[in-house]
């Protein structure tokens, strides 16, 4: 198990009812974090529209997560 801080943004934050939580998760990649927090963020699966960052660096869904990492889950962006 790894201690992972998960941050939710925009639609995900509203669905979760909180912006951040620290969880004990059995995860290897960013995608695992996304899947295991589904009930929180409410999105069915990571697809091309969603993005992820680890410790304030943009990452891929296949990026590994380590104990103590902060994983930021971004719903589809819509700037401008």
């Amino acid at each position, binding site marked *: 198990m790894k201690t992972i801080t998960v941050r939710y943004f925009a639609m995900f934050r*509203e669905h979760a009812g909180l912006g951040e939580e620290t969880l004990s998760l059995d995860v290897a990649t960013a995608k695992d974090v996304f899947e295991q927090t589904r009930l929180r963020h409410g*999105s*069915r699966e990571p697809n091309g*529209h969603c993005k992820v*960052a680890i410790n*304030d660096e943009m990452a891929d869904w296949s990026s590994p997560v380590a104990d103590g990492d902060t994983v930021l889950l971004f719903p*589809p*962006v819509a*700037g*401008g």
Partner: protein
Amino acid sequence: MIEVTATRIEPAELQASLQDPGAGGFCSFEGWVRNVNEGRAVERLEYEAYEPLVIAEGEKVLAEALAQFPYLEARCVHRTGLLEIGDLAVWVGVAAPHRDEAFKACRYIIDELKVRLPIWKKEHYVDGDSGWVNCERCAEHGAT
């Protein structure tokens, strides 16, 4: 240089900061809050941004534009918070020796910013409903 601000964007000041005696062409783009989106009447917009990565990713976009279209100076500012119809949501300005680079760099920057920066837009409709732009689409994808 890219910034995020919760207060009114002032194009005149931004533009003045891009003045350069070697610049012959200046192109700017402004995103204004429109009263309609995908057929629904919009009352106001709310922008949320995750500033650390808006800055980091935005600087990458500016560097990519510079590598392709050698400009002299470029700046971008994106608003957060509640905006009304007609308000300025994003400003991009590019000064370059010639107009071709100015137009192309400005277009590249806004096109990339819109799809790469962690910024989200919630529309508040005239009918009282509201929704995060594109997120409905995300959920649809997720469901199939």
